């Protein structure tokens, strides 16, 4: 990553730190609304990061934006910022313009739709078209994280060629990125807590049983991050890369949430403690846009039908952590 990219990421992190505070996330959860978080984030100009320069955007690649997607997860950002970034990039070449304040979710068929409670617009897909529609959501925010089970589509703003599969890949990839960002933050929080909390006269982190669990947690977080980094390379999402990333993020989430909360004890699940803001979002992500079983079957089928002598060949040809 270049120095410019690092500066970009640091700037974005700082903004998130100021704008997406835990007090605001709690207020959002009590009464979901875009303001004040959305307008303050939109003001940064980052929404057009992926839009091509010829359309007035910053023209960054998804690989460059990957750290931003992680950062959104690291802050438990309750609004569809990454999704709107992608939607704007997809729409720009087709001359479809969104209102400046549009908060867009990707809405392929899915058991749950993160961020849908506050979305103003959605991308929906039928056989060979992806359509931008105005939406209002039902009120089934079952995780208290701003998600919804269904959306009510309204006026269509435009459409472009694309399939339900394309939309699902994008949604799953961006969700994986935000899940692993949130899990990385949970690891940090858990390491800090293990350093502070004393029992039997020493900090939890000094107990070998705890150390071994935290090592496992770090392994899970890092491998899921590498898998997500591999999938978030281009806005043309590669099915095999996305399958591996969502699968890994979901599988990692099981252990990561269990260990984080085990080390914290009951306090971690209380409203006043931040850990649960992250674990509830990670769990909502597990259910959204294909579970580990869904993507594992896809990935298994891809391996069986691939013209590869060995799985090493399959990994090299389809799952390299480098640009597509």
């Amino acid at each position, binding site marked *: 990553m270049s120095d410019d990219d690092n500066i970009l990421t640091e700037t974005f992190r700082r903004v998130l730190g100021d704008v997406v505070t835990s007090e605001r996330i709690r207020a959002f959860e009590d009464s979901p609304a875009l303001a004040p978080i959305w307008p303050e984030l939109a003001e940064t100009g980052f929404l057009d990061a992926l839009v091509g320069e010829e359309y007035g955007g910053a023209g960054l690649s998804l690989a460059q934006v990957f750290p931003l997607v992680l950062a959104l997860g690291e802050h438990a950002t309750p609004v569809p910022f990454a999704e709107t970034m992608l939607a704007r990039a997809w729409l720009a070449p087709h001359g479809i313009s969104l209102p400046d304040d549009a908060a867009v979710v990707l809405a392929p068929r899915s058991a749950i739709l993160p961020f849908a409670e506050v979305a103003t617009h959605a991308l929906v897909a039928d056989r060979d078209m992806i359509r931008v529609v105005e939406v209002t959501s039902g009120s089934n925010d079952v995780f208290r994280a701003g998600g919804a089970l269904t959306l009510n589509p309204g006026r269509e703003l435009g459409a472009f060629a694309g399939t339900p599969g394309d939309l699902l890949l994008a949604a799953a990839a961006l969700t994986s990125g935000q899940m692993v960002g949130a899990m*990385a933050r949970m690891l940090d929080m858990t*390491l800090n807590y*293990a*350093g502070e909390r004393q029992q039997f006269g020493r900090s939890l*982190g*000094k107990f*070998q049983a*705890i*150390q*071994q669990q*935290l*090592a*496992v947690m*770090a*392994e899970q*977080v*890092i*491998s*899921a*991050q*590498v*898998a997500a*980094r*591999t999938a978030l390379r281009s806005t043309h999402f590669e099915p095999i890369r996305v*399958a*591996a990333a969502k*699968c*890994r993020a979901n*599988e990692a989430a099981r252990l990561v949430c269990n260990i984080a909360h085990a080390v914290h004890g009951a306090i971690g699940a209380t409203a006043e403690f931040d850990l649960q803001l992250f674990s509830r979002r990670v769990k909502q992500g597990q259910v959204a846009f294909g579970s*580990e*079983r869904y*993507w*594992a*079957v*896809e*990935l*298994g*089928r*891809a*391996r*069986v*039908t691939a013209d590869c*002598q*060995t*799985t*090493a*060949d*399959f*990994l*090299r040809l389809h*799952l*390299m*952590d*480098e640009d597509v």
Partner: protein
Amino acid sequence: MTINVDSFPPVRIPEEAEALRPQVKAFIAQQLMHMPPHRRARTWAGFDADFSRALAAQGWVGLTMPKEYGGAGLDAFSRFVLVEELLAAGAPVAAHWIGDRQSAPLLLHYGTEAQREFFLPRICRGELFFCIGMSEPNSGSDLASVRTRAEKVDGGWKVNGQKIWTTYAHKSHYMIALVRTSGTSEDRQAGLSQFLIDLSLPGVTVNPIKLGTGDTDFNEVFFEDVILPEDALVGTEGNGWAQVNAELAFERSGPERIYSSLVLLDLWSRSLKDDHDAGDLERLGLLVSRLAPLRNMSIAMTGLLVQGKSPVTEAALFKDMGTEVEQAIPADIADALGARLDRTPDPELMRTLAYLMQLNHVFSLRGGTREILRGMIARGLGLR
């Protein structure tokens, strides 16, 4: 600095290194044509001196050694490509494995010019095979407690003691042993040194240990007043612990930590082409999803090694996860095959499965146990 995803910076395998791949594939296809999968499943536990010498004749043993010492002068990326292909195909690489992976780099780094000139060309030609003398009957994970002792005598060193679990000592020419040269086992890491021990010397006794599988890969090795020449010492006297630790990143970061069960995975995967249920595909997909980031992490660490870094904690994290997948592959496939009461599985698939199922539980032991590795990761996380 704590370990995180940035500890594994993405890197592309250079074209020069990738150029080696088709040549290796062609060589392996020709060499292993008649080797059945259950033999290939042994991969880096499979000892075949002829294969190692044929590989050496291609210039592919000691690939990273400088040309003046008989090597190919290529970098760690080329070695990654070579080793990945060998392991994925299940080539029997054990004969030259230790010399190539550890002894040669150790001697290049710490050896005297005379040691380099004598040993490196012979390793590269596939003439000298090496084993590593680390564990002792009372020193397993607690390696610093080794008791085998070398004492200074006129014109050299006298060694007494015992090593155990020494892989292929009975088929190797030399052992590089970690022994105590001063102090007692209470002094821990201080006072340890590494020696080159010619296993044909008087006073060396090698007793193979037979495993329940019927295989004999391991040995116990006794030293009774074994006289070593002055120049058997590797590196600096008393610096053995630091030297051994420098090898760990090499020993734990490579594709051998994820591919030990790959021959079985691919045999099973091929059998699924015409006959599978959703459960089979799910298991296969989950395994692939775990392998994919690990392979990328191994490549990232190769990049770090090329830059002269020593990603020891990263390698511990990678190896712990890698051996977990290697263990899961036979277990998952056993479950999948055992669920099919309606059919008799292919005998060769079952032979390969049975071989790995009898061994997969020990995959987490070799090269540092799971518990030791997790302790290292915890240290990397700032917990100890």
